């Protein structure tokens, strides 16, 4: 089995090590990984800003980059959601290929659980108290909810109860910059309700940038670890 990794624009720039951990994880479970050249951005920033022409250009580019992929796996629920939920309608010149790509595209934990049926990666997170932030698009567009939790638990982590676990962190792409005060209040709600934990993790770099950036501004908060890195620690530590 061969997987093409789509690091995503945020992953490539801000979570490079987590993307590398995603490669290590996939290899660890016996998958050949390639990283198609030319990959950039899925187009979600333009799509969410109401710029379908720009979003279409980016989406079409990505569709061609991953045309030959057996599976496309992303360390991001939001970008995977963009491809799965919106490419078909957006790329009206070739909806067939767009739909085919959507059907082969998975968020990392979704791929590990649903396609590979992985349940235990290691025991490296034994005794660790972990809060899992459900990225909105992983949760609602992809229906990914139990997958990351069971993988973390499978590595021995205790995924703690957290009343705000399924609430939006306030990132929302451009929203975070256009309406920063409300966006920050949303992040505060997440941070203020956090139980005592060793680290927080999530499948999405955008959410982690928002939450860790806000925590750094407030000079308080837990360590933030991308899910791919958390799971790789589960394998190696």
């Amino acid at each position: 089995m061969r997987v093409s990794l789509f690091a995503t624009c945020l992953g490539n720039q801000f979570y490079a090590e987590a993307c590398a951990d995603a490669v290590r994880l996939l290899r660890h479970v016996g998958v050949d990984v390639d990283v198609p050249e030319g990959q950039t951005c899925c187009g979600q920033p333009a799509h969410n800003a109401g710029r379908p022409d720009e979003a279409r250009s980016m989406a079409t580019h990505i569709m061609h980059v991953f045309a030959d992929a057996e599976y496309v796996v992303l360390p991001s629920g939001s970008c995977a959601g963009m491809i799965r939920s919106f490419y078909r309608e957006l790329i009206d010149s070739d909806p067939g290929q767009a739909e085919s790509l959507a059907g082969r595209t998975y968020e990392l934990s979704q791929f590990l659980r649903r396609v590979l049926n992985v349940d235990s990666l290691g025991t490296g997170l034994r005794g660790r108290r972990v809060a899992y932030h459900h990225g909105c698009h992983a949760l609602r567009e992809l229906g990914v909810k139990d997958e990351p939790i069971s993988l973390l638990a499978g590595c021995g982590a205790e995924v703690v109860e957290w009343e705000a676990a399924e609430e939006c962190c306030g990132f929302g792409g451009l929203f975070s910059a256009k309406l920063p005060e409300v966006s920050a209040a949303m992040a505060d709600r997440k941070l203020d309700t956090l139980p005592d934990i060793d680290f927080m993790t999530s499948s999405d770099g955008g959410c982690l940038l928002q939450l860790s950036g806000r925590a750094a501004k407030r000079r308080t908060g837990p360590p933030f670890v991308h899910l791919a890195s958390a799971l790789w620690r589960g394998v190696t530590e």
Partner: protein
Amino acid sequence: MSFTGPTKYREEAAKILRETPEVRTSVTAATRTFDAHRIRAWEQIDAESWRDWARDVKTHALGNLDAYLEQAEEQLTANGAHVHWAETADDALAILSEVVRDHGIESTVKAKSMLSEELGVNKHLEGLGVHVRETDLGEYIIQLLDQPPSHIVGPAIHLSVDDCRRLFHEKLGTPLDAEPDELAGAARDALRAEFLAADLGISGGNFLAADSGTVALIENEGNIRLSTSLPRVHVAFVGIEKLVPRLEDVSGFLQLTARSATGQPIGNFVSLIQGPRKSDEVDGPEEVHVVLVDNGRTKLLADDVAWEALRCVRCGACLNICPVYRQTGGHAYGWTYSGPIGAIIAPGMLGLEEAMPLPFASSLCGACTDVCPVRIPIPELLVHWREQAARQGLTPATETLGLKAYTKLAQSPELFAVANSMLRHVPLELAGRALPVLNGWIQERAAPTSSKKSFLEMWKEGIE
């Protein structure tokens, strides 16, 4: 205090967060409770099929609105009610003026009605020299404070019990440590006298069944029943989107609305009003006027995408779950309807320019659409309005240029890599001062730190 329009959303939201942070606490607590009740109430029914049914009935009614409106008018007229058509808020208020003049109205009691808020009924009546009293407890509280509602269902949701204690102490003489029951009792006593003195009752209408000309009203306090049956004249303002084909449909909608709004199987009181008191009846008004209000609704209906928002039953479930709404409550939105539903109907009803930036006041998290009892695809509609805003040049030029430049980069992997590399070496805290997008980010958060090498560089070098 009255609404001045949505355009100051960012400033108003920031002001609420800064100056009255307790609003966020009250709103978050109350909406979380509402939502927990909704979840429980939905678990007791086959909510998914109910929602399909509700969506389909409303879609059908909106698709045949002209016929159902005429049928409703015929039925209501046959029942002895007076039916009026109001294209604008001014038309609706003129009809109200006429009723006031014809009947020598001096004192009015009002049932809770968002449409009456939209039309500005209270201010209008006061201008005519007519005494007007809100009788829903929440509406009564905010009327005493001279504030507009901050939630569709719980208009005083932004206030704490202590806020109410202080208010009632000042206005009604209750002790400062009065229990909520005691406060409600004091309001009840004060309102009873108003009900008995009023010669006009004003209400909205949750649903209007075309087959029988029935205005259906749902409530918990009994004040709507009193407002619509005790005074000698009743005026009901009903938005034209409230039409459903049959009285039988109303029975389903009353339950689904209550379950979605407050988690109740049905409201404590349901009033079904078909016309004035009949000769053999002992109570009810002598005259009933039903004012069918458009005020921007047909304009919204004509929009190929956004018309779906007209299915809304005003349950407030989308406000309750919305993480954006929860931070500020409704006042920040600057008009009657706040939260996700407010953001998707404002551009249609007020005009897009007047509604800015509400379509952008969302992280597109999608929680709202999951709880909408009539399945309005709210995020899709928000993106639709964003698209219209971009087309009409209502978004900042820097945003347009930035996105266009980014799109070019994203199609040129070599340039994209160069830009990535530059970003790694630019001190973002400084760059933020020049770029609005970064500036908004840095205002509230630490600047993000790029990885030492991009992932694509790491990949080329080989990953162990």
